[in-house]
């Protein structure tokens, strides 16, 4: 799964710690999501999209093999 979280966070001038506090998660979790090491649950993904005022597919998108699988 790809995401534009780092870009969108930067546009708002938030640090990872700011975003983590708003999402009630740890900073390392934000870092793991941004670097693609962790795919958040649907609950957290919706929470992120809601916080950014966007649709979930504007933040997250399938990538690589998964994109091929879903055609």
């Amino acid at each position, binding site marked *: 799964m790809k995401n534009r979280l780092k870009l969108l966070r930067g546009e708002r001038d938030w640090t990872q710690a700011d975003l983590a*506090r708003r999402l009630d998660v*740890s900073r390392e*979790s934000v870092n793991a999501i941004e670097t693609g090491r962790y795919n*958040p649950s649907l609950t957290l993904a919706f929470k992120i999209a809601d916080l950014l005022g966007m649709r979930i597919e504007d933040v997250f998108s399938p990538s690589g093999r998964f994109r091929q699988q879903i055609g």
Partner: protein
Amino acid sequence: MFNQRFLLRVTFVSAALLGGLAIVWSPLLLFGPSRPHDPLNSVRLLTGTAACGMAMAWTLFFTLRAYHQLDEFQQDRSKNSWYFGSLIGLTLSAPPFFFIAAGGLHWVDHQIPSGIHLLRAFLIGYFLPVICMAIGFYVVRFWPRAASQ
């Protein structure tokens, strides 16, 4: 610097460790320290066993409270670490287990005793936690509420 979740987690882990140790050592207050050649005291034995059970229940309760203070990424990482870490640890323990069970320690140093009673104690000591962990694994695996989390 430290958020509330982190502080709660530290508190729960501290309570788990310190409370568990206090409970498991509490029979010492009743009976005093034992010496290796003391005759077996059944009251002391059963009290110690019960205290150990209570200590583990206490520790489990607060460890679970601490676990629920983790966010989903940290919980996921913790579960992965326990699962795969345990598998790696178990795998690493197999060769030394065989070496010791086959009398390797006596072979290395003839001062170290060997015999059927020691072998039996060693086998029980090795397999008891492994079997209990396997049982725990299947309890959680087939426990509907746990599977849905």
